[in-house]
């Protein structure tokens, strides 16, 4: 009996072809992985592979791109001056978009497949909470910056996870101090924060601080838009109906931009004093359309041209110039966040190299980074909290004014206050909420 000849359609051949192709790619990449030299050696490796992770798509894209640009630029500068201990850094760029599970898988891929030596970045607090335990599991140096949730180091101790930039605790304490100094007769508050660690923690800190500073103040509403939402008309309606004296929001990057654009035509900024704890990025992205009279802080305490101050520090001035020349725009807080992470890593490696006289292991670098104090473009940073894993440094707050920056056109901040690190952070072993609750009533720290 003749066997029937099965006709393969063109498409199935194509599909099989694609599969074979992918199979070959896969095998080749495995082969490559297996021919790399394996264990750490007393002498320095060929290069230091560092992954930079930040949002390159979605509402936070501008913030993430600024961070990655600054990171790449700064690494180029370091490599130009000889690298770290004579070793050049090779950055690998990863987009943080796609959700928590995707990022966890990506992190594993970076460590197990790309074999990076360190991972820096992460803007979303949800991502950092998920990644930190995996950092410990895979024993890889991981330094967070943008994500600011206080839960990170107050709920658990980590060995390999660090945050080289301050967290929401300092921002919201500073916000409370600033708004009570600007508007001492405030009576009612409304909070609009995103429903995840960052939003929940920010509100909690602010509310606790306000309760101590202004015991008579009342919270009228708390609203929790979903993380990812860019439409806030209902929340705006609700807060307009409540007519509070102060509106607290930790909305950030593109989310805050949307909020401001939807709220401004509805007169929100005239009817209530808005406190945007990380509003600095929006000043730059919205530019001349940014309403006046908003109290604004910077993520990580940074506000361009105020902190780091190019007039006060030569390195800072150089960085501003190179960045603006290269990218045609000014650096924002996220740029400095990433730079600070890189400087932290560099300082730790250099301290360990000096101590051991050779290229250090990851554990030795981790030990060197704990409780380290270093200089970041003129800002003094100290890894004082979270058992030496959480940085503290000064925090800037101001109000958007009517003057415009001569070159870039964004509104300049007025009545600027720079809070020293010790004023807005608890002492070393105390949780920040406990510290806030210990303030004498009606007075600050």
């Amino acid at each position, binding site marked *: 009996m003749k066997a029937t000849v*099965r006709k393969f*359609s*063109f*498409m*199935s051949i*194509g*599909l*099989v072809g*694609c*599969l074979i192709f*992918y199979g070959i*790619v*896969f095998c080749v*990449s*495995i082969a490559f*992985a*297996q021919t790399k030299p394996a264990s750490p050696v007393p002498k320095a490796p060929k290069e230091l592979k560092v992954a930079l992770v930040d949002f390159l*798509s979605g509402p936070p894209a501008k913030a993430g791109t600024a961070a990655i640009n600054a990171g790449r630029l700064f690494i180029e500068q370091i490599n130009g001056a000889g690298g770290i201990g004579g070793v050049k850094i090779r950055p690998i760029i990863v*987009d943080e978009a796609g*959700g*928590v*599970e995707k990022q*966890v*898988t990506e992190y*594993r*891929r970076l460590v*197990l*497949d790309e074999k990076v030596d360190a991972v820096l970045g992460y803007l979303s*607090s*949800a991502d950092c*909470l*998920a990644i930190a*335990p*995996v950092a410990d*599991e895979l024993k890889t140096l991981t330094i967070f910056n943008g994500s600011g949730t206080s839960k990170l180091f107050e709920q658990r101790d980590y060995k390999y996870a660090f945050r080289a930039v301050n967290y929401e605790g300092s921002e919201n304490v500073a916000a409370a101090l600033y708004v009570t100094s600007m508007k001492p007769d405030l009576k009612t508050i409304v909070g609009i924060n995103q*429903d*995840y*660690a960052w939003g*929940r923690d920010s509100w909690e800190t602010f509310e606790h601080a306000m309760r101590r500073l202004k015991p008579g103040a009342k919270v009228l509403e708390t609203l*929790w838009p*979903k*993380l990812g939402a860019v439409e806030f008309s209902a929340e705006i309606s609700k807060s307009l109906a409540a007519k509070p004296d102060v509106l607290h929001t930790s909305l950030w990057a593109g989310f805050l931009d949307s909020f401001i654009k939807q709220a401004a035509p509805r007169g929100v900024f005239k009817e209530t004093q808005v406190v945007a704890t990380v509003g600095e990025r929006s000043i730059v992205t919205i530019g001349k359309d940014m309403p006046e009279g908003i109290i604004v802080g910077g993520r990580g305490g940074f506000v361009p041209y105020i902190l780091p101050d190019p007039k006060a520090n030569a390195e800072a001035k150089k960085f501003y110039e190179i960045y603006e020349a290269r990218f045609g725009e000014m650096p924002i807080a996220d740029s400095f966040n990433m730079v600070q992470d890189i400087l932290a890593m560099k300082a730790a490696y250099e301290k360990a190299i000096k101590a051991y006289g050779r290229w250090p292991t990851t554990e030795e670098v981790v030990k060197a980074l704990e409780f380290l104090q270093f200089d970041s473009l003129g800002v003094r940073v100290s890894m004082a909290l979270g058992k030496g894993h959480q940085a503290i440094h000064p925090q800037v707050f101001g109000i958007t004014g009517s003057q415009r920056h001569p070159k870039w056109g964004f509104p300049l901040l007025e009545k600027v206050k720079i809070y020293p690190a010790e004023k807005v952070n608890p002492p070393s072993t105390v949780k920040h909420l406990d510290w806030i609750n210990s303030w004498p009533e009606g007075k600050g720290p």
Partner: protein
Amino acid sequence: MSLLRKRLLTQPPMLIAILGTLIIFALVPLFIPRWGLFLLTVAWAKAILVLGIVFLLWGGLVSFGHGLYFAVGAYAVGFGIKVLGIREGLVLVGLGIIAGGGMSCLLGLLLARYRGIFFALLNMAFSMVVYALLLKFYRITGGTDGISISPPTLAGFMPSPTSLRLVHYYFTLGIGILSLYGAHRFSSSPLGYSLRAIRNNEVRVEYMGASVRRAIYIAYVLSGILAAIGGVLTAFAVGHVVPEYSYWTQSAEFVFVAILGGTGSPLAPLAGSIVFEFVRNYAFKLSPYTWQLSLGIVLLLIILFLPGGLWSLTKPFAHRGTKWILQLNR
């Protein structure tokens, strides 16, 4: 011919195939790096879930809401560890089965009455309700942040950090092979055949005396249980569970894998799942902004030109393989 060989060769070819799969995948860790092992673990876990979807596809039903059971299984692990303090993996699997099975028994009573688009939509609606639940009750479920899963002990034995992923892989493989065997038994059982008949013509099956409702209900419950098991194993592998597990795009991804692999055999979802995980990862690595495009094109091509999925490509080989085994038998 030796007795063992004779007994081996008179088994149905599917069993031999499953045995072969077990042997191949048991040996695979020797050849692939740790990263590939992780992907394979996740692929197996999701393949178990897709088996459930394939059961429903046999009955002519597409569910766009199985992310619900996936999330139920995953969060069962989360709550089991966080609230009940359970540290043992097998107990957590059991917990997942109970949770998923209970949920699907309940929802199946309602959903088994629907067909076609309404079945798909209602499943989607319920999965979105669960998504909203998981998202909003921040204090209990952690909201968008999700719940971190620390590695459990497996059969009382806590694997060392270096062998952790390997042990998880074998654990997942074991449960996976059991599910494959179960699926094979189900597909060759009268219930499995009546399910396929239902897809063809439901009314005739009723007239023949078989209970359509019972078949669909049981298929639905089984698919819910398999999905929950998949969720449990994924939670172990990834180490973090999030509400997005119940979002409709996750359910759509499972249906995609089912169609990609094909519905011809219990091994098909495995093939589909492995191809999907590996292709997705490497496509993402090569070009992060066009991998959805490539997946979409692949799905399109399969729908238009290869409706039996990738597994239908093995038909000529399966045919020849069976002939070869039967010849050996003479």
